[in-house]
């Protein structure tokens, strides 16, 4: 017997699929941030994602232990030597720090970054789409996170901005995403522009700084930092300039940057929840 494709059930399914797609598009367009459905689903999935992410981290550790034992031993020996060297540096630094503190008191200067408050968060899942670069962390409004806050590494390199936030989860869109634009300036010269991600399969850490003036004098290796917003401070490192060219219009320049952070081994980020502007 020949089967019929468009049975009444199939027609109903197709109509339902079109209706759902249209309704969800309209709901997303009308709502700001995550919709109620997304919020519920992400909250339900959060413990599962945390569990799988933890398992994944353990699996990577075991794999590294089994297949990188010799290199780990060599690395361990090198690190021990480095620690000894660093301990000596720390002793010197502590002396210098005390001296510095005295000088700071003398000059009544306060430490620039004492005002930062961090919320550490583990990455629990990554966006599966090739057209986006974002991940989900296991903390949300329950820890005081808000959309627009900045995620950085332990070394102070910008990873991205929170673009969606739920009760116990938040989505961080990374600086490598083409859709995220961050106001930035070149640390040495002060030229300002807008940094956004690019899609280059051969170099996924490539960023682009747009809207630089035609007269801007820029050197390779110049550091690019944030200019700040109401939700994140200025002076956070985005990357280093690798190339400068005229843009498509011919009236402005753009710079290619190498992002300072690497997402490959990223497990944990730190969200700047508070800082004193100015």
């Amino acid at each position, binding site marked *: 017997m020949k*089967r019929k*494709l468009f*049975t009444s*059930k*199939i027609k109903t*399914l*197709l109509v*339902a*699929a*079109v209706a*759902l*797609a*249209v309704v*969800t*598009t309209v709901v*997303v367009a009308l709502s700001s941030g*995550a919709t109620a*459905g*997304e919020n*519920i*689903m*992400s909250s339900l*999935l959060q413990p*599962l*994602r945390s569990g*799988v*992410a933890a398992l*994944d981290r353990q699996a990577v550790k075991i794999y590294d232990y089994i297949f990188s034992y010799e290199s780990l031993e060599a690395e361990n020996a090198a690190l021990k030597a480095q620690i000894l060297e660093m301990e000596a540096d720390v002793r010197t630094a502590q002396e210098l720090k005390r001296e510095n503190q005295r000088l700071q008191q003398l000059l009544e200067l306060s430490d620039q970054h004492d005002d930062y408050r961090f919320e550490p968060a583990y*990455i*629990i*899942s*990554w*966006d*599966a*789409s*090739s*057209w*986006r670069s*974002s*991940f*989900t962390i296991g903390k949300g409004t329950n820890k005081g996170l808000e959309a627009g806050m900045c995620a950085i590494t332990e070394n102070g390199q910008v990873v991205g901005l929170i673009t*969606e936030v739920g009760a116990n989860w938040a*989505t961080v869109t990374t600086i490598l995403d*083409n*859709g995220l634009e961050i106001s930035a300036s070149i640390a040495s010269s002060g030229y300002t522009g807008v940094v956004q991600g*690019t*899609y*280059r*399969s*051969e170099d*996924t850490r490539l960023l682009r700084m747009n809207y630089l003036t035609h007269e801007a004098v820029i050197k390779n290796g110049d550091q690019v930092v944030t200019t700040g917003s109401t939700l994140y401070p200025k002076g956070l490192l985005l990357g280093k300039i690798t190339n400068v060219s005229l843009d498509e219009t011919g009236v402005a320049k753009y710079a290619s940057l190498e992002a300072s952070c690497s*997402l*490959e081994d*990223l497990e944990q980020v730190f969200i700047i929840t508070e800082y004193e502007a100015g």
Partner: protein
Amino acid sequence: MFQRYKKTIMWVLYAVLFLLTMLLQTAVFGRTRFFGVKLSLIPVLLVCVSAIVGHEAGGLFCLVAAFVWYLSGAADGSIAILTLTVCGIGAGFACSQFSRRFFPALGLSFLALLLHEGVVFWMHAYLGAADGAPFSWVLLMAVLSVPSWAIFYLLAKAIGKVGA
């Protein structure tokens, strides 16, 4: 009564398989890019399930799964609800023409990946979110993702036997 119980177990197992695939794709494979692209496993899984259960039941499963996938925050967007449902219905119907469905499921998985990821790429490009991304990535993504069909097909077939 017993048959109904077996069918329920079968659909629960399919739901668990979908959930695990979703977690695998986001928590494990989501961070890694292969030649610039990420693997796309969901369309392959849905094609394989539809190939086993047929286009009507498969279409309904795909519709629900696509909606859950969308709600989980996937960047594919709401268009995925339509494309994945159409892929499921099409694959289920096409596979019903064959007595052995293993290799037809391979070809249909590849076509489903091209259709779904192609539409998602087009939507992102249209909205300006994929500026600079080459369309060849869609083909590359399909080529790299489609080998997962063997595992998904065998799992879907084994689960299908539970409800037979």
